[in-house]
């Protein structure tokens, strides 16, 4: 019962916090660029505005085009409910593990790519094909990270991993460090952040995500943007849960531990958002064909992590 309550609380909080995290990233980036920039609350206003606006659908759009925004939003929200962000006792913790998380986010992306091609415009197809290229490279890297964690903890279940890391004295593990860098590179690619895609443009030939959703408007666009924000929070929570699980409520003392878990989660999200903004300000977007090498590097780090785990455990 508490599991269900915790899951509902997490669903609500993630949805409430997602636009704020995106807003903070944009605001800090604007500040670092020397602009005043809209305040951190701007994404809430944007979403509300989009929800009120008229939704225009192309004449030759099929049912898929209309259904996809709802499906993508639902899948991403479901993914957000799997990652233990402030407490490990989630209702879905037992049934959905890291591999399921990858699969759910992968299905959301698949649907979005289909919708991008549905109307038949050049930009949509171009965005979809690039998105699929990035996905085909990011997912193996993500899975090697998963396998590294599974080798270390002997489980792919997220609550188990977090509890194991909290209860055992793991030390500074090189494998964990490599897996962390690998996962961060994957997260940048999956969320369309700067070295891979520029989230702040609709006007470049190199855009990926924005090209795919160019035909969407009104409430459809609001849902897709909200899903994107949720995805960012999910990845930040995932990184925090796997590599910095401190403060997570493991169900020891009711009440007090939950408050601590919530506070540390918000703190981690803030730190993650600031780090992302700093990193994006310092980096230039890379050419689309360099993305393969970037993600190849991430896959390589993931493999090295797994290999070194074997070496240190002496086979």
């Amino acid at each position, binding site marked *: 019962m508490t599991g269900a309550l915790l899951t509902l609380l997490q669903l609500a909080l993630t949805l409430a916090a997602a636009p704020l995290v995106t807003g903070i990233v944009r605001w800090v980036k604007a500040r670092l660029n020397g602009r005043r920039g809209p305040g951190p609350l701007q994404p809430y206003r944007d979403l509300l505005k989009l929800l009120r606006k008229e939704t225009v659908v192309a004449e030759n759009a099929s049912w898929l085009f209309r259904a996809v925004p709802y499906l993508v939003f639902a899948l991403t929200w479901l993914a957000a409910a799997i990652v233990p962000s402030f407490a490990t006792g989630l209702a879905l913790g037992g049934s959905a593990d890291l591999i399921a998380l990858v699969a759910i986010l992968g299905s959301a992306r698949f649907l979005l790519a289909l919708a991008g091609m549905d109307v038949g415009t050049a930009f949509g197809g171009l965005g979809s094909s690039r998105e699929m290229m990035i996905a085909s490279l990011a997912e193996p890297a993500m899975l090697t990270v998963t396998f590294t964690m599974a080798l*270390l903890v002997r489980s792919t279940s997220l609550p188990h991993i977090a509890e194991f890391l909290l209860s*055992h*004295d*793991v*030390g*500074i*593990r*090189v494998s964990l*460090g*490599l897996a962390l860098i690998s996962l961060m590179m994957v997260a940048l690619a999956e969320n369309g952040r700067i070295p891979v895609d520029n989230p702040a443009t609709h006007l470049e030939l190199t855009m990926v995500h924005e090209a795919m959703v160019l035909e969407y408007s009104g409430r459809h666009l609001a849902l897709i943007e909200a899903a994107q924000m949720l995805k960012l929070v999910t990845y930040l929570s995932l990184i925090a849960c796997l590599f910095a699980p401190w403060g997570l409520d493991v169900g020891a003392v009711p009440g007090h531990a939950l408050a601590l878990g919530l506070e540390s989660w918000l703190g981690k999200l803030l730190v993650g958002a600031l780090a992302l903004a700093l990193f994006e300000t310092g980096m230039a977007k890379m050419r689309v064909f360099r993305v*393969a*090498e970037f993600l*190849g*590097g991430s896959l*390589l*780090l993931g*493999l*090295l992590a797994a*290999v*070194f785990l*074997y*070496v*240190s*455990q*002496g*086979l």
Partner: protein
Amino acid sequence: MLHFANTAYDTAHLLDTGVLILSFALLFQRRLFGVIRTYAYQALILAAAAAWQAHAQQAPHLYITAAIALVFKAGIVPFVLQRIVTAFNIHRSIETALGIGATLVAGMALVALAILLVLPVTTSSGALTRESLAIALSTVLLGLLMMISRRNAVSQVVGFMSLENGLILAAVGVKGMPLVVEISVAFSVMVAFIIFGIFFFHIRERFDTLDIHQVERYRGERER
């Protein structure tokens, strides 16, 4: 097996892996200055690894190795190489004999090879020695790979020196290695460096470029 709550072990392992990762970064770089800078970082981490081993093994002579790595390899060599590149106006982008992706895959295979080679030989020694040796051998092999996969003479020299970083890493990782070895290795590099400097100068004088290809064509080895 999971309870390595041992700071000496963890830190040494972390620094060793840092050296290895930077070897991969060398293979990943596309610009000459990037390669030289990455080499400097690698030497910096090597110095840190040597200093840490000196502290952990209670072996003060290793501090000298660390100092050599810090001053000579992380300071002077990259500086001189940058001067050479600017003075000779060498082409700044890197031509590879193999694609970057393929080189990285080959590098990964070499790491696997090094581990397969080292693990059976060192079953009796502790985990620290085993891993240090595996990582050092991987670094050596990656340096060799860098030398054969680059066309430009400067990046081949950097490959050679990163190979030598791997040797030093192996030397400091093993307990009780006398200083003689390190000094001799360091000096051999210095000599090699001077030789390479002269070598550059001659190639440049004769062929007006540092592309090894020109030499091959001159000798009539193969036509491209």
